[in-house]
């Protein structure tokens, strides 16, 4: 797999807005952003109400995912191009989610909404409607998803990458600084985790750094052991999806999992070890 298989630049996107078989999908942390203007023809996915079960803390079931994509007019054969705000945090999360349910062709728009806007490219407020499809998902691919017990067992055995900001890693903050400081019961990080903030994988305009720069970041500077399996985590699994994308999709590292329970789960568990400080 190469970078061109999983990532498209804004120029390519602009040239392919009306290409048959290409569906643009916007997923934002701020779920109202789409309504203020979106890439022409793009459909909206709401990560809170459509990608998360409203009762259980988990993804929607395979059946519900099939119904969701069918209603959005996305077919199994479509190439889905995901983009969103906050440097593609939730677009990367949705990318990982699509892979989890086995969608064949899915790509990220490099730089997401931010690059598109900084370029001064056009946004539309037109309502988008696509004919319904009969989407069929596969069973979840658990080779890319880590759960609590596997993460605890990974302490000292696998690469654990905490992709939150240094102040969250140290326990000074419990949440990203654009959110009120609430949620997990304890601050800190999983013992033996490396702190490689997701932001180090991106340029200031939200695009991903080059493969050479990414390898230097994770392997040379942070000390990622490429002979070992890797689990990435953040607070709820969206920033770690961004890092999972960099490691698994761009660098081609195998056996990389995203722990979507992340710190809101781990930091509230009874009795598990936690480290504070840097």
């Amino acid at each position, binding site marked *: 797999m190469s970078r061109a298989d999983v990532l498209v630049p804004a120029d390519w996107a602009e040239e392919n807005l009306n290409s048959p078989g290409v569906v643009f999908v916007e997923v934002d942390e701020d779920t109202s952003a789409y309504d203020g203007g979106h890439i022409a023809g793009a459909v909206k996915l709401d990560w809170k109400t459509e990608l998360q079960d409203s009762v259980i803390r988990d993804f929607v079931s395979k059946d519900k995912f099939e119904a969701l994509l069918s209603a959005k007019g996305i077919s199994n054969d479509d190439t889905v191009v995901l983009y969103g705000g906050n440097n593609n945090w939730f677009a990367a999360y949705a990318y990982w989610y699509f892979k989890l349910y086995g969608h064949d062709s899915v790509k990220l728009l490099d730089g997401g909404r931010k690059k598109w*806007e900084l370029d001064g490219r056009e946004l539309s407020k037109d309502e988008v409607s696509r004919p319904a499809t009969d989407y069929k998902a596969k069973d979840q691919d658990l080779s890319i998803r880590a759960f609590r017990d596997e993460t605890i067992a990974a302490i000292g055995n696998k690469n654990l990458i905490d992709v939150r900001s240094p102040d969250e890693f140290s326990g000074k903050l419990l949440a990203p600084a654009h959110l009120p400081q609430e949620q997990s019961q304890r601050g800190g990080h999983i013992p033996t985790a490396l702190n490689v903030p997701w932001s180090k994988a991106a340029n200031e305009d939200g695009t991903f750094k080059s493969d050479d720069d990414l390898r230097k970041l994770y392997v040379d500077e942070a000390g990622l052991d490429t002979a070992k399996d890797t689990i990435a985590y953040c607070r709820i699994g969206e920033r770690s999806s961004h890092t999972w994308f960099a490691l698994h999709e761009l660098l081609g590292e195998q056996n990389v999992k995203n722990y979507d329970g992340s710190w809101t789960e781990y930091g509230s568990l009874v009795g598990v070890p936690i480290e504070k400080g840097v």
Partner: protein
Amino acid sequence: MCGAPAQTPTLPPHVDITKETVIYGTVSLGDAPVPAAYVRLLDGTGEFTAEVVTSATGDYRFFAAPGEWTLSVLHKDGSVRKAVVALEPGLIEVPLTIS
């Protein structure tokens, strides 16, 4: 959940400013507020901590902690960086003018 709160001039009702260090303000160009500007909060080492997009009225807001911070703004019409020192929890207003 992790959804971004609306970037409004008034705080959400549950925020306790005796515990939270809230850095907030308006991004402007000349006398006009700038919506859809990207405002980054960098920590004392210059590391990215968080980013928000300004509201229709140019407002931004961060829930940080006491310490030294830098605000960095990007917009298609300009940019600006500004240092902030937060000595204790409370409200810290930092107007930002891009050029």
